[in-house]
């Protein structure tokens, strides 16, 4: 038993040694075979193994035509200067930050299609001017918020419980060229609607037929200066008068002028004392013209045209006869801010002539005087007095610092920031368009004081505020109060 135990380790060791010898022999002879293959391959490539490194190829260095470092003399002074220069350059490089990379197309698309969180916008129309078609018993308004002409029945009366009165007809859309339209005139013979756009690039005076409806082009257009605010027509002379706010001017056109016809008269200049002109009214009986003014203006002079210099395209219309001098022709530093006024001129006034008289001063109660209406029958001048929430009535011969004959004002009138006023002489009624309250109100012609209206046409709910946002050309943010500032 012991013998068998002693024999078995001896046999195991011998077997292990045999295995090691066999593996060693395989490695040795197999490696020899591989080396023979490599040798044959090298000989085929005309190189023979030598046991030393061999040159197998020659490649030239890259060209040396780039910028090279400047050699710096190795003395202490220049070394210090060089070190300082390098430090400064390093600082400059750090300051010249590279633009950040671009977001992915998917990220850009997601942002581009993102909807606004909130939109401050008055959803209802804002009546800015009013006129009555007494032949067809219709009342027509300009809406300066949603860019529409709205036609109602003259006798419409919105019940207190109703949200609003639906108009009979609406003219609106890109084809109409109605944008910030702020005044209108109804041709008493045809019922045609003459309306002016206040503040858009090169918007014309547009004329629509009485039955126009929807997104339709005007039947006629007349190119006018930018910033027209008020319109009045002398039917006997067949002339259209326009008050130009931007240029503190009045231009007069022939009533049936075509698109590019120039004005036939111009009233503009320092002597006229026009300033931020707004409303305009005519007294054809006494041959007078009335213009309301906020008061701001500046002196203007024609731009010199240098020899050989071509006029720019946009300047072509400025070369028309009787075209007012533009804001670009204002003389720097000549600006004026005068009190509000109503200036009175001869109806045919032109050039730089002074007014016959001016209604102006604290007794007049004027505060941002807007549209005017002349009641020739009674010799009374009506003013929509925007900031005073009132209608002021002056005698047509009023002059200087005088109080109005009548004032229509108070909470019962529902008048708020009135910009439009019209006297319906046939029906003995006074119409007021309130820009600040979604409401038009009808009164007896001679109403005064805090009188409730005879009828009301609302274009929005009774309690809906009129935001009066109009052409918000800028926006600000009050970080202290967390409020959004929207100027008109």
């Amino acid at each position, binding site marked *: 038993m012991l013998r068998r135990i002693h024999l078995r380790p001896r046999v195991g060791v011998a077997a292990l040694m045999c295995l090691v010898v066999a593996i060693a022999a395989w490695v040795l002879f197999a490696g020899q075979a591989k080396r023979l293959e490599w040798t044959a391959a090298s000989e085929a490539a005309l190189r023979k193994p030598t046991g030393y490194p061999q040159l197998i190829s020659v490649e030239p260095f890259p060209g040396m035509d780039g910028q090279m470092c400047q050699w710096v003399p190795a003395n202490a002074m220049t070394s210090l200067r060089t070190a300082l220069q390098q430090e400064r350059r390093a600082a400059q490089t750090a300051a010249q930050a590279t633009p950040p990379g671009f977001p992915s197309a998917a990220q850009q698309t997601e942002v581009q299609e993102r909807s606004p969180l909130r939109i*401050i916008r008055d959803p209802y129309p804002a009546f800015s001017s009013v006129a009555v078609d007494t032949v067809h018993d219709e009342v027509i308004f300009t809406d300066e918020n949603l860019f529409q002409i709205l036609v109602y029945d003259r006798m419409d009366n919105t019940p207190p419980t109703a949200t609003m009165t639906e108009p009979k007809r609406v003219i609106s859309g*890109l084809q109409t060229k109605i944008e910030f339209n702020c005044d209108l005139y109804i041709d008493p013979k045809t019922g045609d609607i003459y309306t002016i756009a206040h503040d858009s690039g090169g918007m014309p005076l547009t004329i629509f037929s009485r039955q126009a409806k929807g997104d339709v082009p005007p039947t006629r257009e007349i190119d006018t200066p930018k910033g027209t605010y008020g319109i009045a027509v002398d039917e006997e002379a067949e002339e259209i008068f326009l008050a130009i706010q931007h240029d503190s001017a009045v231009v007069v056109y022939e009533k049936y002028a075509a698109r590019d016809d120039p004005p036939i008269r111009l009233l503009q200049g320092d002597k006229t004392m026009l300033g931020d002109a707004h409303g305009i009214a005519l007294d054809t009986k006494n041959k007078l013209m009335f213009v309301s003014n906020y008061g701001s203006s500046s002196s203007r002079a024609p731009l010199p045209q240098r020899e050989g210099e071509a006029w720019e395209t946009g300047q072509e219309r400025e070369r028309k006869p009787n075209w007012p001098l533009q804001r670009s022709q204002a003389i720097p*530093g000549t600006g004026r801010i005068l009190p509000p006024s109503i200036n009175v001129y001869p109806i045919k006034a032109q050039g730089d002539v002074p007014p016959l008289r001016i209604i102006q001063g604290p007794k007049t109660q004027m505060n*941002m005087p807007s549209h005017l209406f002349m009641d020739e029958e009674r010799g009374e001048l009506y003013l929509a007095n925007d900031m005073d929430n009132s209608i002021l009535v002056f005698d047509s011969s009023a002059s200087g610092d005088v109080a109005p004959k009548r004032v229509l004002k108070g909470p019962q009138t529902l008048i708020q920031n009135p910009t439009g006023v019209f006297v319906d002489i046939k029906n003995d009624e006074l119409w007021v368009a309130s820009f600040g309250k979604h409401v038009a109100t009808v009164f007896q012609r001679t109403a005064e004081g805090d009188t409730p209206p005879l009828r009301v046409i609302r274009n929005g709910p009774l309690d809906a505020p009129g*935001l*009066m946002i109009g052409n918000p050309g800028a926006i600000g943010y009050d970080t202290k109060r967390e409020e959004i500032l929207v100027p008109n």
Partner: protein
Amino acid sequence: MHPQIAIFARLADGGEKPVRQIHGQKTLLSRTVHAIAYDGIHDEIVVPQQFAQAILTFRGGANGEEAPIRVIHGSLTQLQRPDRLGIDPVNNEIYVPDGGKMLVFHREANGNVAPIRVISSDSGIGGAVAIDPLNNVFVTGGSRSLQIFDRTASGHTKPLRVIGGPKNGDKIRGSKNITLYPPRGWIIVANQGVNRHRPMDYSEESFVGVWNIHDDGDVPPRWMIGGPFGALRQARGVVLDPKHKTVIVSDKYLNAALTYYFPEIF
């Protein structure tokens, strides 16, 4: 049109009424206020009044028919038709692009005062301006380009960089107002877009674009918000509310103020 600055709560929406209004004859405001700047350091509101060639500064909390606290106005001012402006409340300056030049007034200038600096350039000075007191540049916007100037520039000078070119010039079509986000060097521009409905001021291609003050040459905007073919029809004003990561845009055609959440740029 009723001249006013209507002031709304940050969260106002729809037809919500303003919390206050600055309007009336005593304010000296006229309409056509095409720029407004709120100075958060001194709590003031600054606007141009182009008909009277004036710059009006109101108290930040002004309300109702309140007169401005300062008026820059008169023969020394060189003001011709101030339409837009920018303020640098850190360095106490008001920038007014006017007549192809940049007129720089001291913030506290009042009455008939001359500008402290007048900057001009061969390439002209654009119509909109915003100042970055952190990176010491100001940016002006022309009809087809944005120009980046050294903030301390004076006299006749050259812009440091001009963004615009044949590929992306249309992207900078009618940059009406500019605002900056200095911590990240963003230039945010209200672009009215290519107007294909003349004479209407209406463009479906209107948008607010974002560039960087280090951009140079014919670089497209990194971001466009509100369009093209979005909600905007005539972007005119733009301002940031960094605290709530929003950009607020006024739109002339919509008669509206739109607030967009835009955290990517803050």
